[in-house]
């Protein structure tokens, strides 16, 4: 049925499943090249300690929170709204709210944090989905407002789980959001250090991939992202489809925010800073086009892993974290440029 969807010059309207498969393979091939680069650098003695199981687990561990956030960001990009710039302060706000609410116990704190995140998502959903505000400028504005709320409510202060929590056990539960060793928890040995965020990232990737490629919401999202007008005239309820994408993004940002806050053991307004740019980078390297409607969550996972490998190699080379921004920014622009160019040469550029 679907194969009959063709343009007048015979091009398939579906980018064939083989093509899509090859894009994902390409991303993981790039990741493999970076592993090869690391191996060569280690073999020539430039860096040490790259090729070890522990290092690879560390790499995944460091990017696991980025991966969680990137899954939600991918939904927004897929829907054709480029990026949700309110992610950093959504993470900070939900984290600090959770810490503050630890006085009422662990699960209430998590619940209230998630509700807070969903409220931000709903606000974005209404304004961008229904009123068609410019997504970048609106989410930037929300980012600043949320920042202002945090600054205003907590008067520039940071709060610590162990001083707020009702009992030591509650504070410990909050710390273990990031630190819980899943393998050990279910009775395995503690040699393999698989932490909870890693598991969350993998689960979210599986769910996200399933939703995008197998559900009607995923199909509608693809259509809305590929062509807003076409989707609207076909009868897709574009308002709620775009809105849902932003809610999903806020939800994953909340999970990421909880993990980041648990990692740093402090609720503060600067938690999550930089996650907007890094998540967009991961999404773009993962083969999703900013025009919307193309790409896959599995690819985004590949993008996240590539970022982790690049960061790891740069750190092992001894480049300071902030100077790594130069290389990250350059890679980001180059990847988007190549992506845009290859799409144009295929005649699929619709920006």
């Amino acid at each position: 049925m679907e194969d009959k969807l063709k343009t007048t010059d015979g091009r398939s309207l579906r980018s064939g499943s083989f093509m899509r498969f090859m894009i994902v393979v390409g991303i993981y091939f790039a990741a493999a090249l970076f592993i090869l680069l690391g191996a060569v650098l280690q073999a020539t003695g430039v860096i040490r300690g790259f090729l070890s199981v522990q290092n690879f687990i560390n790499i995944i561990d460091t990017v696991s929170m980025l991966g969680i956030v990137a899954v939600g960001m991918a939904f927004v990009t897929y829907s054709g709204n480029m990026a949700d710039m309110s992610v950093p302060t959504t993470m900070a706000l939900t984290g600090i709210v959770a810490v503050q609410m630890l006085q009422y116990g662990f699960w209430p704190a998590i619940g209230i944090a998630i509700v807070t995140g969903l409220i931000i998502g709903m606000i974005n959903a209404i304004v961008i989905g229904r009123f068609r505000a410019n997504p970048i400028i609106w989410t930037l504005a929300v980012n600043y407002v949320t920042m202002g709320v945090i600054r205003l409510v907590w008067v520039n202060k940071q709060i610590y789980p162990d001083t707020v929590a009702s009992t030591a056990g509650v504070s410990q539960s909050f710390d273990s959001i990031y630190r819980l060793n899943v393998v050990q928890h279910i009775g395995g040995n503690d040699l393999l250090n698989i932490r909870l965020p890693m598991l969350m990232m993998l689960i979210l990737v599986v769910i996200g991939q399933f939703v995008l490629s197998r559900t009607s919401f995923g199909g509608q999202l693809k259509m809305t992202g590929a062509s807003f007008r076409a989707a609207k005239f076909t009868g897709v309820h574009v308002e709620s489809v775009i809105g849902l994408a932003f809610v999903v993004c806020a939800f994953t940002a909340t999970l990421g925010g909880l993990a980041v806050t648990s990692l740093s053991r402090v609720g503060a307004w600067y938690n999550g800073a930089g996650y907007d740019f890094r998540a967009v980078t991961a999404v773009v390297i993962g083969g999703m086009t900013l025009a919307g409607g193309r790409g896959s969550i599995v690819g985004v996972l590949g993008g996240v892993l590539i970022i982790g490998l690049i960061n790891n190699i740069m750190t092992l080379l001894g480049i300071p974290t902030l100077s790594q921004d130069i290389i990250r920014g350059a890679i980001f622009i180059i990847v988007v440029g190549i992506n845009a160019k290859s799409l144009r040469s295929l005649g699929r550029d619709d920006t």
Partner: protein
Amino acid sequence: MTTPNLKSNRSQVLPWIDRNRIFLLFFVILAFMTAFAPRFFNPFNLTTIMSTTAMNACVAIGFSIVMISGQLDLSIGTVITLAGIIGLGLQPRFGYAVSVPVAIVAGCLVGLVNGLLVTKAKINSFIVTLGTMTILQGVVYQSTGGNSIALSTPVAFSTADFLGKKLMPLVTPRILVTLALVAVFELVMRKTRFGRNFYMVGGNRNTAWLAGIGSDAYIIGAFMLSGLTAAVGGVFFAMESAAATQNLGTNSLMYVMSATIIGGTAMSGGKGGVFRSFVAILTLEILYDGVILFGLGNEVKIFLAGLILALVVLYEAYAVYKHDKVVGQRPYLLKELAEAGVKKG
């Protein structure tokens, strides 16, 4: 053929208010602060307001031109920082005669790179400038090692004194530079063909192409002007204040973007003006100054700045949403039908 003039008084007043909202807002807020804020209306405070606005007002010139051309420049904040650091960092060895032009040229170069990537590599301006912003952050950190650069030579101190000295009431040399730039660019944007073409490119690129305007050149030009004004704002601010810090321009993006949008420069391009953005910057600064004078903290100012931006973006989006709902409807036909006695429905 004349179109039937059925516009009521109401429908002429509201658009007028909307067009000139920034000037009305300016007078309302100025009047409010004069009346209620303690120690607001005195020469010292007003000069403080003017010199605080001087940097962002300068940056807003280029940012507005980029928005008028239908693009977005997120890199202005880091260009400000970069220019400040170059301006002060090279001064001890080469003097301001070299370091200031170098800083400004660096700003232009960033703009050129942004413009080339947007027009030739055809990458969305949001992505390009997000990327250059990140790169510049790294460059700033790499070049300073995370420290701020302080004034060190006697020349630098005397220049700082000169830039902050009152020439006449309310005007210091640095404010004068900003006012001159605003005046020049306002005239260029309103009166010259070169300036009007930015509106054409931003309003409708196809029309601009049909009119024989090289859109690419204008977009590159807009980004270069944005880099130029951001660098000028940053370098003069750094020269007057004691040091160029790592986060010199961190908050500028939010303030400048809020002001530009409040000033009536459309997010979709083709609308707005340099002078409007300047008045908007001034209005916001008066508001923030008043907030501090009322004894409220910096966090209230940050919250207010974000809230104002959000409200204006929401208002603009809602106005477009409502306009889109009635677009294509012809009210005079409905009115004719009503006059002919045909009931609706």
